[in-house]
């Protein structure tokens, strides 16, 4: 319902107002008792009281009783930030049979008593304005019901790297039907390219193989490889997904030996992308011999002129296979599309312009390909110099972030080099080493084995230069008073970070997932909603969200899987009713609201012969972007109506008459221009805990039994107000003495 401007009438007439002391956190600065009395006089306020702790069980029970006995139709709790107790009091309302939408929380602690603890009288006046605004707002509150949607107990996991595979298994084990999609022809993603993973030293391929085996055992996982998403429509509970599956061009009934022979005899070779161009592969290939699923792929375009070869293997190859388009419906989606390696620009630290400059992922492939001696371009490598933070923490470039796993990955590689090959010296030219948690052990091992570390600063980058046949790395070392050092290296390794995948924009457009400043997918809140996106039913996990190591990737994707299981388990989901709604009478359909909506939640519909905007309740996020652009003010967000917001503004500005407490002149202190009518209770207790002589903070804490932090904080304020004064330090010079002034 959208109210018209003539119906400015309070909808709630029996309101309960509870003003919290929060121990003394609020009442030390705000006169809550006076405010309690003041609002009792309001026309539509039935109950107004100050309470010691509004969130205490006893008070919650009293509130339930008040609501029921006095037939309250709305409540206002004036206490701490809504981030802490909004749901506590919404639940109180529910328990009392009151619609939780008829509850407003007013923040008089974080946004009043604490930031204005220096001006208690003004804090009280402000609190009065805030509370009146809360009363005004709740007066216009409507009883809203959550929107119930039926959901299909099927999940789509996009990306079959380690994060996606693990999440798919957990989703299946929890009883969900799972579609697992992989763009590549083989599963495993980036970890398959790592011969040894920190901290366990496991082979990435072994982990991939064990996860694939588990997937095969789960009858309710359907895996698609070579698959891309073409179209997404629908919303939470019922996402309609169209995918395209590319063919492998291998006859499904062909003999395995014949397929193997075709691979061996294939006349066309190209650079092997899996090995980052270090080797060649055939046009019929697997990423690596054990790659899964265990069926090779034909790169058909490369064989178009090889008619004789194709004819010879006509029963093995099926060159007429076509793309397949499939559609299905899923209740929820988990995106685990991973990352791309940062690709240095040509000439960046000599990359592509000097022969023996490679990236860390390239070195990792090289190590796996060199079983006995480390050889690059025909030359045995004896010295390796790493340059850290290439493409990360850029002052000038786009990548401001730290990729968080590359320091440890480099040090792990350095340890691997010394373990696998004899007599290799490594030099680490770094900006800062970030081997957090247990990974610090690897850093210690590396230092112990004789790896040498040199620190550079972003303002003076290292230089890679050719000197005849030698490659010289020049660095100004900040650990030795900026000495200029020259390192002759057989191989210079650029430690490159993670960047968002090239196709992440496409995925973002399909699912409408917001992209952050770092261009990775954006969660709602990094701490409180770390895997949720603003799109209901769409979750993100792994490195598509930002740089992570393997275990962090799996943790986040499993968190996403758990959220999906919880979401789908009952077959219906309850959605917050705070969404956009259209006043059909006022709307004249101009399309502006639909234009700004990033979620295509608004569509043009015809109602009784009139074309108007309609909101898809399952898709709308309640952001409110559509409301300000409407030229006829025909769209609004529930709980953020004009009446609610404008009445709050009026409430802030309404004149307040606060009765002064009777003042005992002896208790009043004046300091500078600041007057105080009475000391806060906690000050009185601190003063009572002080002897007439000088006292240290630990002595005052012991005497007053007040928490240490509180005493320290309040003594500083009391000093500012001239209530106490410092009186030198104790003999050990550990603590200041304070004495009463």
């Amino acid at each position, binding site marked *: 319902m959208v109210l018209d401007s003539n119906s400015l009438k309070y909808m709630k007439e029996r309101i309960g107002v509870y003003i919290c002391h929060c121990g003394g956190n609020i009442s030390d600065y705000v006169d809550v008792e006076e405010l309690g009395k003041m609002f009792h006089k309001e026309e539509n306020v039935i109950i107004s009281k100050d309470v010691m702790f509004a969130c205490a069980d006893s008070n919650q029970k009293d509130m339930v009783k008040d609501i029921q006995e006095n037939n309250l139709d709305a409540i206002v709790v004036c206490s701490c*930030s*809504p*981030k802490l107790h909004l749901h506590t009091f919404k639940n109180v309302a529910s328990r009392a049979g009151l619609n939780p939408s008829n509850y407003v929380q007013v*923040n008089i*602690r*974080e*946004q*009043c*008593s*604490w*930031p*204005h*603890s*220096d*001006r208690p*009288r*003004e*804090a009280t*006046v*402000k609190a009065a*304005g*805030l509370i009146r*605004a809360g009363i005004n707002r709740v007066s216009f509150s409507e009883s809203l019901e959550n929107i119930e949607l039926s959901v299909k107990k099927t999940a789509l996991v996009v990306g079959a790297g380690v994060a996606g595979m693990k999440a798919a298994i957990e989703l299946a084990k929890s009883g969900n039907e799972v579609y697992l999609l992989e763009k590549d022809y083989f599963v495993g993603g980036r970890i398959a390219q790592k011969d040894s993973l920190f901290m366990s030293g496991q082979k990435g391929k072994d982990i991939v193989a064990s996860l694939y085996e588990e997937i095969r055992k789960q009858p309710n996982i359907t895996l698609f490889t070579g698959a891309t998403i073409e179209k997404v429509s629908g919303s939470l509970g019922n996402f309609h997904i169209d995918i395209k599956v590319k063919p492998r061009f291998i006859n499904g009934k062909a003999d395995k030996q014949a397929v193997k022979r075709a691979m061996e005899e294939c006349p066309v070779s190209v650079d092997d992308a899996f090995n980052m161009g270090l080797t060649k592969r055939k046009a019929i290939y697997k990423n690596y011999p054990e790659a899964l699923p265990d069926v090779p792929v034909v790169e058909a375009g490369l064989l178009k002129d090889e008619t004789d070869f194709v004819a010879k293997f006509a029963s093995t190859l099926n060159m007429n296979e076509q793309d397949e388009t499939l559609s299905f419906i899923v209740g929820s989606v988990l995106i685990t599309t991973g990352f791309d390696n940062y690709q240095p620009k040509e000439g960046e630290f000599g990359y592509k312009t000097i022969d023996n400059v490679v990236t860390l992922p390239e070195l990792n492939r090289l190590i796996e390909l060199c079983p006995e001696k480390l050889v690059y371009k025909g030359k045995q490598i004896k010295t390796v110099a790493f340059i850290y933070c290439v493409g990360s923490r850029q002052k000038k470039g786009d990548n401001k972030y730290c990729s968080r796993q590359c320091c440890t990955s480099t040090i792990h590689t350095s340890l691997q080099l010394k373990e696998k090959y004899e007599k290799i010296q490594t030099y680490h030219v770094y900006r800062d080493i970030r081997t957090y948690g247990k990974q610090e052990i690897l850093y210690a091992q590396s230092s112990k084995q004789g790896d040498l570390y040199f620190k550079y600063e972003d303002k003076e980058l290292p230089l890679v230069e050719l000197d005849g046949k030698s490659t010289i790395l020049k660095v100004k070392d900040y650990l030795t008073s900026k000495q200029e050092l020259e390192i002759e290296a057989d191989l210079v390794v650029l430690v490159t970070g993670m960047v968002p995948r090239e196709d992440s924009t496409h995925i973002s457009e399909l699912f409408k997932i*917001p*992209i*952050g*400043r770092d261009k990775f997918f*954006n*969660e*709602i*809140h990094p701490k409180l909603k770390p895997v949720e*996106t*603003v799109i209901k039913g769409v979750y993100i996990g792994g490195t598509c969200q930002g740089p992570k190591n393997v275990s962090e990737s799996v943790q986040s994707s499993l968190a996403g899987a758990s959220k999906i299981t919880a979401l789908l388990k009952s077959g219906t989901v309850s959605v917050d009713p*705070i969404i956009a709604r259209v006043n059909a009478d006022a709307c004249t359909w101009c399309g502006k609201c639909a234009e*700004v909506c*990033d979620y295509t939640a608004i569509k043009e519909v015809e109602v009784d012969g009139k074309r108007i905007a309609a909101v898809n309740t399952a898709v709308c*996020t*309640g*952001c*409110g*972007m559509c*409301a*300000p*652009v409407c030229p006829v*003010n025909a769209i609004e*967000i529930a709980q*953020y109506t*004009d009446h609610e*917001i*404008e009445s*709050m*503004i*009026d409430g*802030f*500005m309404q004149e307040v008459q606060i009765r002064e407490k009777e003042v005992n002149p002896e208790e009043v202190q004046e300091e500078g221009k600041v007057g105080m009518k009475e000391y806060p209770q906690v000050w009185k207790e601190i003063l009572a805990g002080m002897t007439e002589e000088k006292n240290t903070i630990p002595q005052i804490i012991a005497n007053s039994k007040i928490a240490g932090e509180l005493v320290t*904080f309040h003594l500083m304020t009391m000093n500012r107000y001239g209530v106490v004064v410092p009186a030198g330090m104790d003999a050990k010079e550990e603590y200041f003495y304070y004495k009463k002034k």
Partner: protein
Amino acid sequence: MSTSPKILVFSTDKISDPGIDQAGLRKIHYAPSVYVISLPCSSGIKPRWIIHALEHGFDGVFIAADGHECSYSSRCAEHTNNIVEVSQELMKEKNINPRRVRMAALCSVCAEPFMNHMENYGKILAELPLTEKKEPPAPKGE
């Protein structure tokens, strides 16, 4: 009693309002004449609310936007900026100085920046002529 300019702040539930809470939590002081209304997203602020505030006693409106951190839209800053521009057009018609609305990005731990914004904006507002927003221009032709 304080004579600091009265500032209405529009904050956002997920990013800038927690930043303003942080200022309180850390006992960082700013003027008590600052009042905050939190919304889901700064791109949902209606220009009529800004005008309402300025016509009903507020000296300035400060939009604590999410900027590029917004979880709803990468275009949030652009949309919010449009709201400021539309509001300023409306304000001009009502002879209200356009400097009485201001926008800045504020993060979820931006306690000190919030205090600085309030202090600086308070100074700017204090220097603006007091009468201008109370007296709309005489209609043309009179």
